[in-house]
């Protein structure tokens, strides 16, 4: 069938930070197909230069309102690596709890408020109310728990304050952790219920596949979020984390102001599906059951399944948090002071997994402890090239479908990656009646 049509999805409701989908078809042939990110170049790295080592964490926690814990942890790891600070086991354990809280916060937002409307055929979470109010309330309850958990461990729901160089400025009490565990046990059942609700509508997820490379952290000890080696499904482990640029090869394309990245192929994917594909054998059995429910097995090449991988991770985050709390209580929570640095200069690299994928901070500090060089590699930028390549394979497969369906399928693809494309500003733009 030959036809002419255009699909242009532009997000112009906010001033900056938009992802646009451009598809032009003439006589049934694709003339233009572009995933372009119109984002003001970020100057965060420049802002970090000239700042003292203990200011880097608070500044980077403001890069993103969703991944503020993850940026904080990547920043602390880079600073501590530069200054040879050895954190205590309790600090590392509490940081793992913090990263679970953030992953839960972000994943439930994405699954519940962004993807669920697509699955239920509703325009937005608002349109789900009425027929699916119960489901929305379940999502709201799980989201609330994740928020309160972040608040308890990090001192705030967002933009944490207790995470500091060398440790924590304040630790939760045993009583607070026991209370949190009780809530997590309730959330475990609620997550199972939500998984079954989503399973009933999961056939609306397109069955598209494209072989690609997946990159994330991996470890023999655990399903990695906080620590591990950088690894690829194509090339295996790369233990030299300071040489991350050999893996994450960033480059610039003319149609986008955000950087793109590649490694062994033209593109790679980071995020929940990448972590699942690398580390699924280390998931908690309860999380593995959820994966089995959706027939999700490694290696899965369907980017739409990223949302299901998030649901699986959400369950793992709950289970591992319960385990961590038990361990902390067994060992006894100590009110520890942060470890102080003994030197001021050095280069350090911090790598963590945040909800959208692997995140790197790289700092160089001078003899007074001031930052002279900084580099941050953000997950979403690593996914842009993969989104483009997915679209190039997907569109010819669906080109004969109605335009509206093509548009929705492409939008759903972008949403599956949960891109962070406009997190750096928050002012309202209004006109009065």
């Amino acid at each position: 069938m030959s036809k002419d049509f255009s699909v242009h999805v532009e997000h112009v409701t906010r001033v900056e930070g938009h992802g646009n989908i451009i598809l032009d078809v003439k006589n049934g042939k694709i003339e233009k197909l572009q995933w372009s990110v119109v984002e003001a170049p970020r100057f965060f790295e420049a802002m970090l230069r000239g700042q003292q080592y203990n200011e880097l964490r608070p500044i980077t926690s403001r890069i993103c309102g969703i991944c503020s814990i993850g940026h904080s942890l990547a920043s602390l790891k880079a600073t501590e690596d530069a200054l040879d600070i050895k954190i205590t086991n309790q600090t590392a354990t509490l940081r793992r709890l913090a990263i679970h809280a953030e992953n839960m916060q972000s994943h439930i937002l994405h699954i519940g408020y962004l993807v669920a409307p697509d699955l239920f055929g509703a325009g937005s979470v608002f349109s789900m109310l009425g027929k699916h109010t119960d489901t929305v309330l379940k999502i709201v309850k799980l989201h609330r728990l994740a928020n309160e958990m972040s608040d308890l461990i990090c001192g705030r729901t967002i933009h944490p304050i207790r995470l500091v160089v060398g440790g924590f400025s304040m630790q939760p009490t045993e009583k607070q952790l026991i209370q949190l565990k009780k809530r997590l046990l309730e959330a475990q059942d609620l997550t199972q219920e939500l998984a079954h609700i989503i399973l009933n509508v999961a056939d609306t997820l397109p069955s598209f596949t494209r072989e690609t490379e997946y990159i994330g952290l991996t470890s023999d000890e655990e399903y990695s979020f906080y620590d591990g080696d950088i690894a690829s499904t194509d090339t295996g482990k790369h233990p030299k984390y300071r040489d991350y640029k050999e893996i994450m090869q960033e480059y610039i394309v003319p149609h986008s102001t955000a950087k793109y990245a590649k490694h062994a192929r033209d593109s790679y994917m980071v995020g929940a599906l990448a972590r699942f594909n690398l580390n699924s054998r280390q998931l908690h059995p309860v999380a593995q059951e959820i994966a089995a429910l959706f027939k999700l097995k490694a290696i899965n090449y369907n980017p739409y399944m990223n949302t299901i991988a998030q649901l699986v991770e959400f369950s793992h985050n709950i289970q591992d948090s319960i385990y961590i709390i038990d361990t902390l209580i067994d060992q006894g929570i100590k009110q520890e002071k942060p470890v102080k640095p003994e030197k001021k200069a050095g280069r350090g690299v911090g790598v963590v997994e945040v909800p959208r994928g692997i995140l790197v901070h790289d700092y160089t500090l001078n003899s007074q402890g001031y930052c002279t060089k900084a580099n941050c590699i953000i997950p979403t930028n690593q996914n842009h090239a993969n989104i483009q390549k997915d679209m190039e394979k997907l569109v010819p497969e669906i080109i004969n479908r109605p335009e509206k369906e093509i548009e929705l399928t492409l939008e759903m693809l972008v949403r599956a990656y949960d891109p962070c494309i406009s997190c750096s500003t928050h002012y309202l733009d209004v006109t009065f009646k």
Partner: protein
Amino acid sequence: MKKKIGVIGLGNPLRNDDAIGLLLLDYLHQNKKKLSKKIDFIDGGTSGMNLLHLLENYDTVLLLDAVDFKGTPGEIKKFTIDEINNQKIQLFLSTHEPDFLAVFALLKELDKGPTHLVIFGIQPKDVSHGMRLSQEINQMLPKLQKKILKEIQSMTV
């Protein structure tokens, strides 16, 4: 039950004048002895949907945020959601998209959240990347701080 008042500052300190809501919040917090004990001071940053559950705790929320209403830099406008045109709810493409208006609308639909919401919008001049206020906003900062303190005092007695 919910007698507390939430004063929430929003904004990004990495976007020059977008920090104004947070700077005013800091000033109020430093002067909390001059204000009602019922007030909680909350740094909402750029949290979007994560504000949802914070808002549930309050009957009254007073919001401090940089707002582009095409005024002169540093001008303050006090308004409610009913007074503005763009109450449309965006179809979110990313978790970072929803703004405060969407969060408030969802709470209303769920029959939760504050009954009273007043926004103090401060017209920014420069919200590009950086950690410095524009000259205009910087010069007016002491005046803005005093004005906001007085307003909040009179509203929360």
